[in-house]
């Protein structure tokens, strides 16, 4: 009986661990996430479930987490509408992505796009690779080779 309970508990906690945790955030939390850190390389990706090239490139961020481990922090920010959170979750689940992931619930776009990146007009996919004050801004779909090159240039 104890064993059974243990097994059940184990599977329950495993499934909770694997379940998609997408945190809904506002502008304030987003800007907090984007704060530069001199000792850490960050990869921020802005995507949405309705954006085909975004969904297509998601696996390269999983690959980043796998290859670089603690050297690089990957932060995914979905721009799906908050009521479509489940759509975003499903895609992440399908792509087996289970690291820090957010959904920005701010649809007055003009009030925060410039605060994220003045060069950005708001089109997605958009990726930022950042270490301290060094920032690489990429406003198109990336290949793994391109992303890896950008990350390596900041890891040096």
């Amino acid at each position, binding site marked *: 009986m104890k064993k059974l309970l243990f097994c059940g508990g184990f599977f329950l906690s495993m499934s909770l661990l694997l379940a998609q945790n997408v945190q809904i955030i506002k502008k304030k939390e987003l800007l907090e996430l984007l704060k530069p850190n001199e000792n850490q390389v960050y990869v921020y990706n802005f995507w949405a479930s309705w*954006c085909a090239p975004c969904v297509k490139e998601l696996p390269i961020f999983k690959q980043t987490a796998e290859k670089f481990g603690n050297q690089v922090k990957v932060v995914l920010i979905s721009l799906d509408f908050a009521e479509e959170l489940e759509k975003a979750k499903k895609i992440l689940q399908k792509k087996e992505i289970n690291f820090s992931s957010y959904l920005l619930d701010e*649809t007055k776009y003009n009030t925060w796009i410039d605060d994220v990146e003045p060069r950005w*007009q*708001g089109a997605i996919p958009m990726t930022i690779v950042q270490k301290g004050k060094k920032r690489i801004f990429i406003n198109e779909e990336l290949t793994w080779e391109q992303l890896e090159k950008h990350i390596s240039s900041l890891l040096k």
Partner: protein
Amino acid sequence: MNKFFVSVLLFVLAVIFVSNKPAGDGYKPGDKARDFSLKNIDGKMVSLATLPEATKGAIVIFTCNHCPFSKMYEDRIIALDAKYKPKGYPVVAINPNDPARVPDDSFEKMIERAKEKGFTFPYLIDETQEIAKTYGATNTPHVFVLEKQGKDFIVRYIGAIDDNAKDASQVKERYVEQAVDNLLAGKKVSKAQVKAIGCTIKWKQS
């Protein structure tokens, strides 16, 4: 001699300044917009200069078939044309996407989509992507409101159509309408640039 050096220096500075302006930087409000000659869905070439309704200006919208944010705005783009074409500001829609990357944005599919939705305005294909690049369009949808001054078209507004992509009934600020209304009233455009989420333009991959 001194004068000579000063003028050489000025010349060099001017050259540096001009060549430092990054290519493809795009237009800012106040810039003169170049005209174009692009193929419409009816097979005819359309340019601003020969568009009969563009008596006061034009609402140039880079948009496409496939992008969900473009689709959300289709009806609102038709409404803009209905409201402002009679006032001298017709809509001119331009699809800048490379159909090799997005088959849904091919010329044939543009014809289909325009028929389905009953577009009342030209829907042009920017095959070389030169116009989108010159204008500095990066998104779909991406609006450029142009005011006609003599033979020139001057950029007066760049950006989003309004402040609520998801729900037209919840819109509080209609940026394009405000801009054109300002121009029609002979006023300065109050908000000349407004950003919004959209799809990236699918550039040709060489």
